[in-house]
């Protein structure tokens, strides 16, 4: 017992020392934090006029000038953060360039370039972020190099975003995307968000990706193209409808339905018989917004769909189509009379009648209400009479 007590006493010394060290570190950090916060408050007062000067003259032809009062290193950091916020808040490239020029005059670009080239890892990531905010094109090669060797964690995307912001042309962005492809983790949505921060011709880039082999590139392309609607997009998306990957199929259909100016009957037929319920639902929803009577039969057939969501969407689409659609819906529902599905469909119709009856001032809705009520009573009506509103 003596020996173990001695060991314990020794351990105790070590522990007390460690505790003390830790405590000192924690306090030091807290004090630094408090000091920084105070310094920041002072910075805001001291440089208020200067910051207003920058804000007011972003449009003017003249180059923005350096602060008229000397700055400490900490204050320079605050100014950097403030400038980053400004650059990120506004889109005018001219204004951005002016702010970047100011950053250059402040020596910020040189400072961070140097850190990116030769600093510790921590300094490098910090520099990457700031160079990204300042859109420093010259940083791209170094950033790309860093990206290629980087492991898959949060900082990887910080660097990738920096590349996108700094990108001088499409080539830079493509290289960035390709070096991320080796971490195959399905982060295409994040990548699209990153790419959209770049000042390049994004449409061309996304169109190019859609034609690639790599599924992730295709996903990026399809997601990115969602914002553009042109016949070219529709045909590119159409080609991918039968892609072997299901997620690509869904996104391709979604894009196709969003961008195509018209839907050929055979395509609609194909999509409505697709094995994936999601795709059938998307198609019905697209037809619903189209309000084209020529699809009445297709919609009526979809009432037989096994996916309840599709049936529901078809019913609503038919109601929205007006007279023809409504009578198709009612006869469709009639076919299921007595079954659970028939009851359910009838429920949808009744609910819609109730809903429409509350809005007699809207002419379009009133017409639909009357048509629906008429068709309903003619086919399914058996309950108490509901009166027409004229």
């Amino acid at each position: 017992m003596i020996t173990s007590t001695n060991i314990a006493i020794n351990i105790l010394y070590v522990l007390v020392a460690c505790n003390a060290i830790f405590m000192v570190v924690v306090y030091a950090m807290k004090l630094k934090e408090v000091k920084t916060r105070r310094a920041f408050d002072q910075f805001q007062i001291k440089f208020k006029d200067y910051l207003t000067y920058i804000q007011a003259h972003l449009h003017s032809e003249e180059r923005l000038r350096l602060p008229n009062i000397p700055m400490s290193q900490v204050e320079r950091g605050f100014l950097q953060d403030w400038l980053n916020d400004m650059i990120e808040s506004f889109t005018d490239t001219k204004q951005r360039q002016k702010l970047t020029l100011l950053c250059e005059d402040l020596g910020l670009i040189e400072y961070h370039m140097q850190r990116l080239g030769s600093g510790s890892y921590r300094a490098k990531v910090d520099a990457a972020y700031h160079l990204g905010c300042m859109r420093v094109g010259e940083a791209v090669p170094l950033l790309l190099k860093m990206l290629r060797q980087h492991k898959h964690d949060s900082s990887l995307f910080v660097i990738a975003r920096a590349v996108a912001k700094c990108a001088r042309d499409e080539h830079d962005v493509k290289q960035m995307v390709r070096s991320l492809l080796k971490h195959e983790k399905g982060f295409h949505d994040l990548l699209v968000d990153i790419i959209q921060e770049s000042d390049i011709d994004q449409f061309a880039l996304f169109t190019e990706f859609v034609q690639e082999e790599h599924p992730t590139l295709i996903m990026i392309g399809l997601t990115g193209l969602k914002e553009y609607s042109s016949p070219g997009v529709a045909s590119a998306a159409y080609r991918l409808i039968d892609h072997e990957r299901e997620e690509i199929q869904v996104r391709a259909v979604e894009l196709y339905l969003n961008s195509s100016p018209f839907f050929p009957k055979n395509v609609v037929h194909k999509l409505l018989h697709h094995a994936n319920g999601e795709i059938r639902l998307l198609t019905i929803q697209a037809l619903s917004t189209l309000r084209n009577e020529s699809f009445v039969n297709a919609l009526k057939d979809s009432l037989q769909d096994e996916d309840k969501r599709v049936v529901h969407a078809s019913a609503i689409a038919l109601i929205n189509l007006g007279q023809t659609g409504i009578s198709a819906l009612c006869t469709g529902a009639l076919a299921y009379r007595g079954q659970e599905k028939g009851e359910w469909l009838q429920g949808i119709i009744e609910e819609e009648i109730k809903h429409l009856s509350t809005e007699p001032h809207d002419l379009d809705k009133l017409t639909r209400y009357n048509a629906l009520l008429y068709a309903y009573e003619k086919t399914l009506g058996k309950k108490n009479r509901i009166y027409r509103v004229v």
Partner: protein
Amino acid sequence: MAVFIRDRHGELTRQLLQMTHVIRDRHQPCGVILAPSANINQQTLDQLESFVSQSETELAAKYLFDDHNMVFAMILEERKFAATHYTSLIVKDFLENHGLLQGQLVVASFPECGEPTESTVSQLIELAAKARGEEKEIRLFIEQPAHQGISSILIVDTDEVVREFVRLHLELEGYTVYEAKDGAEALAIYSEAVPDLVITELNLPIVDGYQLINKITKASANKGKVIVLTGKQLADHLNRSFELGAIDFVTKPFSISELQWRIKKLGEWR
């Protein structure tokens, strides 16, 4: 060159007019800085001149002090608005350090901020004299064309950077601008000041942007009083804003000149 003006009513106006006209006749811009101050003697005026010329080596300027109005004035040759504003930072620094500044500085540059007519100049001086006792800030002067339809605007955003920036630029355009940092504050200001236009973010605490649009649209006879300026990018947000009665939808990051243009068009259309 430092000039000392003593005790003569209207002398400062006369001097300013004369000097600005001389410079204008040379087709050069001319900056003006005015500040309510304590008594400045010739020696301090000279000190100020040498202080300013340390960092503004190529500046040709005249320094005046009017002890009738107790206003310090400075006229800068070949200085546009931005440059004049910058010089005013130096001047303010000096005046504050010497305990001389007693209110707001007024900064303008001709012809950028208007024509140097007699009325503009006396307006400027009056502004500076009135600015005594106000917070020690720098006020930018721009002669305003009369706005059509819209003269007061409320900007609602939680982000101070955005609020300040928009406010500054709209004020430079001559609008009266109110600020609110959340929906509840916005409603309070709205019911009190009844601005002609509201620019709002959708992301607001408790009373969010949608509710704000809804309430404002319901409260006002005249439709389309709200412009949405938001970080929300989805089409859903756009549709819902329009459904509730917003007149325009601008997403962040945004361009201030585009926003100004839209406001102007909106005013003309009204």
